[in-house]
């Protein structure tokens, strides 16, 4: 059934024409984003609808969201190589591909989001060690390098490349030492996921964002790492399910999916309890100390208390409870509902920790600030989605991403 020697043996893929048509559509979307990116780099950030009150907006949310959703990579690496959950080897390749897409996208968005892109390297050269953003930049870049290293052996498993002894042995040897990179990835992820939480938590001039500290780290530091480990797997499972739906075949055995979902469920439940405690402390101690009540932060029609309820209950406790129960995990409707709610939940958390921070007025005589992204901002945020679809499509077609695919879908 192989059309080209590039496709792994023993698996079935759609026709070249079908694939080309799909790639053309996604590439068109990608080019729209590239055009918007060109406009922003050429004409400046006046192409956006950001302003002096809304200095952080859609892009920073996108950054935080993709990094949280890509958290499945470091957490599955931790579970597989450090804890020893070998069952997850059947899904870890996809988690690495997703992580690679998410982190490369985050770096690209950061490069678009700065006023002087050619000075981007200043963050490394003139680093302020007290800034959370510096820690983000360093750990994010290093972890992206780790993800690239983790992705390379999978690329080398392409049948055409695997035929060459050098690439074959390199891939084999890289697999052998992958535990070291997985451990490095976990270490780096702990810090950059945390630093992203710290970016908002240290803003003591912004009562909506500010949180109490443990040493130099605000509570959001720990909550962001925890939530990325909790919800990242939901996104990995969601992408697996979408891929299975599109390719119309089972790619990962339920045992791996259910194990990953169960661990994710317990992480979500423990995270959301910690998040609730943090919210209560913030609402009843931190904010009143600054002269604010909880409802002052939710006094807008857009940013109302429903958001907090949605984040903690609908997208927190509910998916967590579904995923920790055997019946919930094994019911495909409930499983899908839980992972979708989980993905929405973590994205919502990142949204409020960026956009609501900017919207809440700090002075009693100021109004709530509003913001609607420009088409250039939307296009450059869609760009990574299109890029991700292209990378996943190529990876699925030409690489053995799912080790159980042959067994689950035998062909004559």
């Amino acid at each position, binding site marked *: 059934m192989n059309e080209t020697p590039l496709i792994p043996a023993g698996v079935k893929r759609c026709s070249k024409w079908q694939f080309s048509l799909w790639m053309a559509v996604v590439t068109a979307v990608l080019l729209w984003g590239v055009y918007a990116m060109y406009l922003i780099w050429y004409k*400046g*950030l006046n192409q956006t609808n950001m302003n002096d009150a809304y200095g952080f907006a859609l892009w920073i949310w996108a950054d935080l969201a993709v990094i949280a959703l890509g958290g499945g990579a470091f957490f599955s690496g931790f579970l597989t190589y450090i804890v020893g959950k070998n069952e997850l080897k059947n899904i870890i390749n996809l988690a690495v591909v997703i992580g690679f897409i998410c982190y490369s996208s985050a770096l690209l968005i950061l490069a678009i989001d700065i*006023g002087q892109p050619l000075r981007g390297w200043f963050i490394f*050269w*003139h680093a*302020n060690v007290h800034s959370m953003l510096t820690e983000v930049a360093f750990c994010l870049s290093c972890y992206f390098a780790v993800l690239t290293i983790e992705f390379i052996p999978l690329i080398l498993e392409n049948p055409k490349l695997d035929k060459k002894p050098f690439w074959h042995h390199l891939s084999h040897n890289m697999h052998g030492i992958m535990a070291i990179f997985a451990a490095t990835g976990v270490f780096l992820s702990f810090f950059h996921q945390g630093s992203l939480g710290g970016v908002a938590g240290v803003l*003591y001039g912004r009562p909506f964002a500010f949180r109490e500290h443990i040493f130099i780290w605000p509570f959001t530091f720990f909550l962001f790492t925890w939530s990325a480990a909790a919800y990242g797997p939901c996104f990995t499972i969601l992408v697996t399910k979408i891929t299975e739906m599109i390719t119309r075949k089972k790619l990962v055995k339920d045992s791996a999916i259910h194990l990953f979902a169960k661990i994710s469920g317990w992480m979500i439940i423990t995270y959301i309890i910690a998040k609730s405690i943090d919210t209560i402390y913030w609402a009843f101690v931190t904010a009143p100390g600054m002269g604010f009540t909880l409802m002052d932060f939710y006094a807008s029609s857009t940013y109302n208390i429903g958001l907090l309820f949605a984040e903690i209950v609908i997208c927190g406790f509910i998916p967590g409870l579904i995923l920790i129960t055997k019946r919930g995990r094994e019911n495909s409707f409930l499983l899908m509902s839980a992972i979708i709610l989980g993905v929405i939940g973590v994205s919502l958390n990142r949204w409020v920790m960026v956009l609501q921070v900017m919207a809440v007025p700090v002075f009693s*005589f100021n109004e709530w600030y509003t913001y609607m992204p420009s088409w250039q901002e939307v296009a450059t945020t869609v760009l990574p989605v299109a890029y991700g679809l292209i990378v996943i499509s190529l990876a699925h077609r030409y690489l053995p991403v799912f080790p159980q695919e042959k067994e689950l879908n035998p062909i004559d």
Partner: protein
Amino acid sequence: MKDKNAKRYGMVIDLDKCTGCGSCMVGCYSENNVPFKADETNKLDSINWIRVYKITNNKTYPNTEVCYLPMPCMQCDGAHEGHSPCVSVCPAVATDYDYDTGIVSQIYTRCFGCRYCMAACPYHARKFNWWDPVWPADMEKYLSPNVSPRMRGVVEKCSFCFHRYQLARDKAYLEKREELEENEYQTACAEACPTGAITFGDLNNKHHAVYKLKNSPRAFRLLERLNTNPKVYYLTSKSWVRKAGDNYLAHEEPTKIKNNIKEHH
């Protein structure tokens, strides 16, 4: 390293005297080469280093009262000196705290435009150059040679006319003096104010007017409860103005709130 003779420059703005004429803003624009747009309707992307806000007591006529509140950069000290909200977050040390003067600087050629400092500043004192500065015909010839114009994509803010401090220091050095007289270093906004509402000087120097004024019972600072520790003080005899300067729970009275953060001397 902090010098034992270090200054702590600050400002006291008497809101009872401010008429909202905007001279401080005009003086600042021309002194610091602050760029402006052809259409300044949208104030959210205008650049101004000092902005006069108009606030009211939210009462209907005939009980309506209005107060004009000029707001430059507060030059915050933070919980410990140098821990200003913006300085601590800048990833590239493009904004720095000068321990000799207490002034928070902005290094335009170091700033790469991440805008984290803007997110950190509760006073909205920091402005981003969304466009390249464009000056009307021939106006470039009248720009101040002492202040570098800023380029697109960087953040700028009030510097307490730091170039004036440098010029005054140079003059004192040539005259073999260590100390500056109070009137040798004054900001453009303080000089431009026709009612004398803005007073500038060393908050630690007993001989400077600001020292006495900041200890007035009418004195308060904006958003003190956030522990930003600003070096801009305000004077008002109106309780509603004082209340508008910070956030209070329903049962709280501004004069009875104790602040955790003390000034640095």
